[in-house]
């Protein structure tokens, strides 16, 4: 099949994505360093980790505020909205493809096109991460930055403790997402194809 390039990632999306990725990597590194702080094996000096984490967290929040309206205002929105339509059966179809058809090198039932850049699994994961995980991690993070805003007790549990627990749990899930996300992105025709795509804007179809 001839190589075909489709312009899928507009400039604003690429800038957002780059900044987002960098910030999240810093946040994960400093977050892990604080959570598993150990006087004998300091990974990142604690006070430094706190400052970096706080600054990156605030920047991430600002960056998210850019992502959301940009998506609503541009046609990029439809990849998420349309991508989620009839999501259950379509996800099952995609799984069947991965398990039985892809090993036989059959074509994907959801090829990447200008109209449909995400397969159902991508649509689902990206939506969960962007619409549930990121807002949760950002709001709990901001709340921890201003702990006086947190309810002292929620159903008898310490509000601060619950907020912190939720924050680190979601942080963990985002880290897992990141690992899987980067790995899945290596599954293009060439390992680097997708990474080039999110930098240049053009997705390569083979």
């Amino acid at each position, binding site marked *: 099949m001839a190589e075909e390039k489709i312009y899928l990632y507009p400039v604003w999306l690429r800038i957002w994505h780059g900044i987002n990725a960098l910030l999240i990597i810093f946040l994960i590194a400093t977050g892990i360093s*604080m959570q598993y702080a150990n006087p004998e094996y300091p990974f990142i000096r*604690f006070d430094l980790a706190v*400052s970096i984490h706080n600054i990156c967290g605030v920047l991430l929040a600002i960056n998210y505020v850019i992502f959301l309206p940009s998506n609503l205002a541009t046609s990029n929105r439809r990849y998420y909205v349309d991508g989620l339509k009839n999501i259950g059966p379509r996800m099952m179809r995609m799984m069947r493809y991965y398990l039985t058809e892809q090993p036989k090198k059959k074509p994907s039932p959801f090829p990447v096109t200008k109209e449909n850049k995400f397969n159902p699994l991508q649509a689902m994961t990206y939506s969960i991460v962007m619409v549930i995980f990121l807002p949760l991690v950002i709001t709990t993070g901001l709340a921890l930055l201003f702990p006086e805003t947190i309810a002292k007790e929620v159903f*008898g549990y310490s509000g601060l403790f619950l*907020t912190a627990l939720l924050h680190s749990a979601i942080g963990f899930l985002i880290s897992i997402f990141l690992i899987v996300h980067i*790995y899945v992105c290596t599954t293009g025709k060439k390992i680097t194809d997708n990474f080039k795509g999110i930098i240049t804007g053009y997705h390569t179809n083979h």
Partner: protein
Amino acid sequence: MECHLPEITHNSHMKIYIGGLMVITLTLFFNFPIHSQEVVIMDNEPAYFEDNKHCFQCHGQRFYTYENEFTGRIERKAMNPNLIYDADEFYSGVHRHFSCTDCHSPDYEIYPHDTELRFEEMFSCLDCHGGDPTWKRYNFELIDDEFHKSIHSPDHIEAFNCWSCHDPHSYRLKTRSNFSTREIVTYHNNTCKTCHDNPDRFQLISEELKPSLEQIHDFLPNFNLHFNAVRCIECHTEPEETMWVAHNILPKEMAVRNCVECHSTNSRLMSSLYKYQSLENRRERGFFNAIILNDAYVIGANRNHFLNVASLVILGLVLLAMIGHIILRIIK
């Protein structure tokens, strides 16, 4: 003689198992009492309530009146603020069953007081509490030793004594009573702040003018959060395993500045403030709840073992799946 041991059947296994479970559950939820009997009875009529009224009549208010014997007039005067004692506070304190003249000269009963009385030597804590088994669990002798090693010791500051921090007229037991950790923190920190955040009192013993506490501690992120959540002594003393309140205040150069001393699983808070808290919680809420209903969150110190294991398992599975996939990709 033939001896018949009871046969262990499936049924008796079950009983042993259930019995064992019950014993374990009971031990976990058993409320370990950490308060032995109250030494001071707090809910009865103070022993010298009527006698003391005479003193509180003047020393319990901002203004007092007396009859001037020379002029025959009734005079109304402002009481020296340092000599005003709130009667309610006194009767909520540990010395509530005392008569004022147990510690102060009986000559004070006469007004105007003899001016020389003010030079009378005051008792120190150990004069009454030292060497007495009744007070053993409060560790007065140990506290005295620690105090003498501390930066507050009279070797450094001559005028310093127990009363500089503990007002015997209102002293209450905080750590050994039903107060939340927050209340204990506030109470203990206020004790330090009476001088360290109050130039008038600080300059009673020092020529120096101190910068504000917030300026001194500007290296702490979120000063207020730290000050409301932990006690000054957490960083300014060497933790003392046997004492709730360490008294060996270290020179400021030796105070903890390294975040991870608290923010790690080996947190030094565990040997002081939170040791008390977790004992207290276990007493009130049972073992499991004490672990889940943690009042405070200390980054790095509050690690939930279960979540730690769960996250490692999830991470492991994800990595395994990825490695499996990579292998398949290479083979195909």
